[in-house]
């Protein structure tokens, strides 16, 4: 030990060789693994951090469907069914339930892909921490959306169980909503992540999105009534909303809503394209910011 070290410290930890224990993989092996699986390794980290607020996630995942289905499905449903005899040939609960599932998961995307992204670059800087490891910025962006996508899937699954409990589905294919909802949520969330990654400073931009993008989408994109019930000049809000495309798909699989095959295909294509383009842009923005 050097003469500069306080005595109490010098006594400790002399037995183990810290620098090279010999137990680690070689750097070459480390690089091979992270080149291939880096996106998954980052997703693993992101899921670990979610454990810190697991309780909130679980309570929300269970509580939200119960509140929605009880109020909208049963409360409002009784009114609609007695007045109009249901919507599109099914009870209001069956009509609205798949849409509530999809829209509640899509709305989660706002929380997951705005402030946490800014934090990764600005406050906690965990994106910079990751980019000092063998991971590439592209893998970090991809891992982020994979982890959040898995969380969405879990939430959709819990919501679907609630749908079953409430007797709100009539088709054996209804389990597909567990995949449709996260797809729709990522179709909205991944482009949002690219946008959030571009922001240098916290301003009103995220609150603006919440108020003027997410809320109108929730109210006007065919969640509570068929899009066709609105004047044509308002229907575009639905057409450009991932929420509407996801909702329509959910209705098809949950109660067999009639839909031309090409339109069904178009719904899927729009959602997949939004995720793909969003991922590509996000990967570029992450790379720009993490390799200045």
């Amino acid at each position: 030990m050097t003469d500069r070290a306080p005595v109490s410290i010098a006594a400790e930890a002399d037995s183990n060789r810290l620098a090279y224990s010999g137990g680690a993989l070689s750097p070459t092996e480390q690089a091979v693994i992270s080149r291939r699986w880096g996106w998954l390794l980052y997703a693993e980290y992101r899921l670990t951090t979610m454990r810190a607020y697991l309780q909130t996630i679980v309570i929300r995942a269970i509580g939200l469907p119960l509140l929605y289905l009880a109020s909208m499905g049963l409360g409002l449903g009784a009114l609609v069914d007695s007045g109009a005899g249901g919507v599109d040939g099914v009870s209001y609960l069956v009509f609205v339930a798949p849409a509530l599932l999809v829209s509640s998961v899509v709305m989660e995307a706002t929380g997951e892909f705005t402030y946490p992204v800014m934090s990764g670059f600005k406050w906690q800087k965990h994106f910079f921490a990751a980019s000092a490891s063998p991971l590439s910025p592209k893998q970090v962006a991809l891992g982020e959306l994979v982890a959040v996508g898995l969380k969405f899937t879990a939430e959709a699954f819990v919501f679907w169980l609630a749908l079953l409990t409430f007797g709100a589905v009539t088709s054996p294919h209804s389990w597909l909503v567990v995949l449709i909802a996260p797809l729709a949520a990522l179709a909205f969330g991944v482009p949002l992540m690219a946008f959030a990654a571009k922001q240098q400073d916290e301003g009103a931009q995220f609150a603006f999105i919440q108020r003027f993008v997410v809320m109108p989408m929730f109210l006007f994109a065919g969640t509570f009534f068929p899009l066709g019930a609105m004047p044509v000049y308002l229907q575009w809000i639905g057409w450009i909303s991932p929420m509407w495309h996801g909702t329509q798909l959910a209705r098809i699989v949950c109660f067999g809503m009639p839909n031309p095959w090409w339109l069904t295909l178009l719904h899927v294509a729009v959602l997949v394209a939004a995720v793909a383009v969003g991922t590509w842009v996000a990967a570029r923005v992450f790379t720009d910011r993490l390799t200045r």
Partner: protein
Amino acid sequence: MSVIQARALVKSYGELHAVDGIDFDVAPGESFGLLGPNGAGKSTTMRMIGGTSLRTSGTLTVLGMDPETRGPEVRANLGVIPQQDNLDSELRCRENLITYGRYFGLPRPYLQKRADDLLAFAQLTEKANEKVDNLSGGMKRRLTIARGLINEPKILLLDEPTTGLDPQARHILWDRLFRLKEEGVTLVVTTHFMDEAEQLCDRLVVMDHGRIVAEGSPAQLIREYSTREVLEVRFGSERNAAVVEQLADVADRVEVLPDRILLYSADGEAALERVTSRGLAPVTSLVRRSSLEDVFLRLTGRSLID
């Protein structure tokens, strides 16, 4: 064979040349310092070594590899301690180490043992299950260093390791770094503290405005650019400038700072006698050894910390 080699390395942001054509070599097991004021280009150089900043021109190799094209391979050999701690405050200390180790593809059983060893090394064993937010500044810094060691790196990059720490925390940290050096880890340290550079570095380059202005061991640099001793005298901020003309031939070199005059001489006491023999009575006087601060002042005409 050097572990890091830079030739005519340049990094520009538009018109600004953050790093303006530098050459240096780092030998295996060496403790190499980049000394300079804020904005000298030290951190940018560090980021280029890790491949997280792309160079504008020149060549750079780390263990014979280009960090830009072989980033994962280079970074698997590096431990990076950034200027600002970027630990995850939502995770506990031990989890911070383990989750970070997973980025390197290291298996969990290895990481669990490694994390315990590193917590002991960082003297944080008792804080293993504590949230990061509850740690002091010095503890966070040590945890960041522990995290940087998780993959058993050959080279440790430390960007201002002790900035913002109190003297005791700095000494604990220096001691930990000495241990690593003894085990053969190559250290690359940026700092704007001369005492830190003198404590930690076998060899260093002095950087200013993106250029290297001098290179050598701390002792060599002091020998070459300064005198053995320095006499510091104060006549009060009003009088310093007025008195300085009478002191021109008292020492080898004279520097006037806002609050004091520095007289460079092999024998400080003798210089002080010459000052008083001229009937000048400084308010305070101090004879000390030359330091890297004096080297920097000589090379750039400015103090390191402005």
